């Protein structure tokens, strides 16, 4: 059984990282940084869904999605729906994702993050009006890079090499 990626996730640690994600999102981002800004909250939620599925799941994702909706002045439910779908995808691919080293895991997360952002796009499209171009998909790159860094950090924290010795 592969328990290498199971971090001892206490409630304090989980809530701490999620609060940090919300705080980072509150920074006054602008210009290019705003365009590529990773979705900190989404990465946080999906990370804990992957490692602590019994604690963090659909409910948390939905509530944090509502918070992000407020933050962006978007329709309520837009990010909430997308985050819930992201959680489902991660749960579905969980055993597979846990086997990979950070960069492969990030590569696997890319389509999931892309899917989540596409749902945001679709819900906004159906509910409000057509989006102005596809720049909405750019933050996915930032989120993937963030995922890679987080996964790498966790792995190094546990004293394992950055790559699988295979």
């Amino acid at each position, binding site marked *: 059984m592969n328990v290498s990626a199971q971090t001892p996730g206490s409630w304090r640690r989980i809530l701490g990282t999620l609060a940090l994600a919300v705080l980072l999102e*509150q920074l006054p981002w602008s210009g290019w940084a705003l365009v590529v800004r990773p979705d900190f909250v989404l990465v946080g939620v999906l990370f804990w869904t992957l490692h602590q599925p019994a604690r963090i799941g*659909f409910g948390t994702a*939905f509530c944090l999605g*509502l918070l992000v909706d407020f933050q962006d002045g*978007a329709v309520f439910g837009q990010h909430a729906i997308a985050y819930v779908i992201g959680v489902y995808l991660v749960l579905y691919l969980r055993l597979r994702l846990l086997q990979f080293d950070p960069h492969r895991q990030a590569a696997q997360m890319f389509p999931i993050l892309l899917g989540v952002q596409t749902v945001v796009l679709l819900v906004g499209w159906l509910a*409000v009006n057509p989006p102005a171009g596809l720049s909405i998909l750019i933050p996915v790159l930032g989120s993937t890079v963030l995922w890679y860094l987080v996964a790498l950090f966790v792995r190094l924290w546990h004293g394992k090499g950055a790559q699988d010795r295979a």
Partner: protein
Amino acid sequence: MAMPGQLMFARGLGPTARLLIWLVVGVSLVVVDVRYHALDGLRSGFSMLLQPVREAMRVPGEVATELTGFFTRHRLLQKERDALLAERTQLLVGVNNAKELARENAELRKLLKLQTRPGQQVVHAALLYQGHDWFAQRLTLDQGGGAGLRTGLPVVDADGLVGQVTRVYPGSSEVTLVSSAEQLTPVFVERTGQRGLAAGTGHGLMELRYMPAQTDLRPGDRLLTSGIDRVYPAGIPVATVNRVSRSQSSPYLRVDCLPLAGLDRSRGVLVLIAEPQVTAR
């Protein structure tokens, strides 16, 4: 040990069922919000909750600005001060002139028995947060209903029209930018006086709509608010014409405009609050 009649693996709902439940909740939220606008209370609640957090998260940036500002060279400051003093003198001359004109205008209006224009009050507001919504471009300001803001008020900066207040919370408010998609602004061309309708494109640009093909328009023309809608006061600079092109398929010109206000740069803006109409005595 599993007993007969007892589930060996007691478990809750599977992920698919949970997903479906949350999706139903989500979709109903979207419908309730878009169709019935019933969630403004929730928005206000979030705003109360996040307001102090946002204020706090501005501190690092402000400290950095303070620090870099501290090390600005003395010489530079002196130069800036001289420039500002010169500008102030010039502006004072202009203000005297304007006072004189206003007095004359008031007298002429009295002679012509025209209604006096409503007075104006301004509220300074600082940019608190820039939204990340791709469907309508919004800013969050640090002033709200407490400072007398209402939805629909125009927001300007030193260079021109920024947008319109669209949501008001007790301590903050949201502004939809003029360049936001489907945001319409009635304007006129400064050089010719031709009236038109400027619309945001959603890419930080604007276009002037429904201008007949023979309209006299040149790149560089300034567009000012016409004041016809009674939302914006007349004469606020909105945009400059960037490119005028004629299309074969449409009877109208395609006019691309560049907003004048620093939509993505200005940190401080003014909200114009029109005072109630002053009745002529």
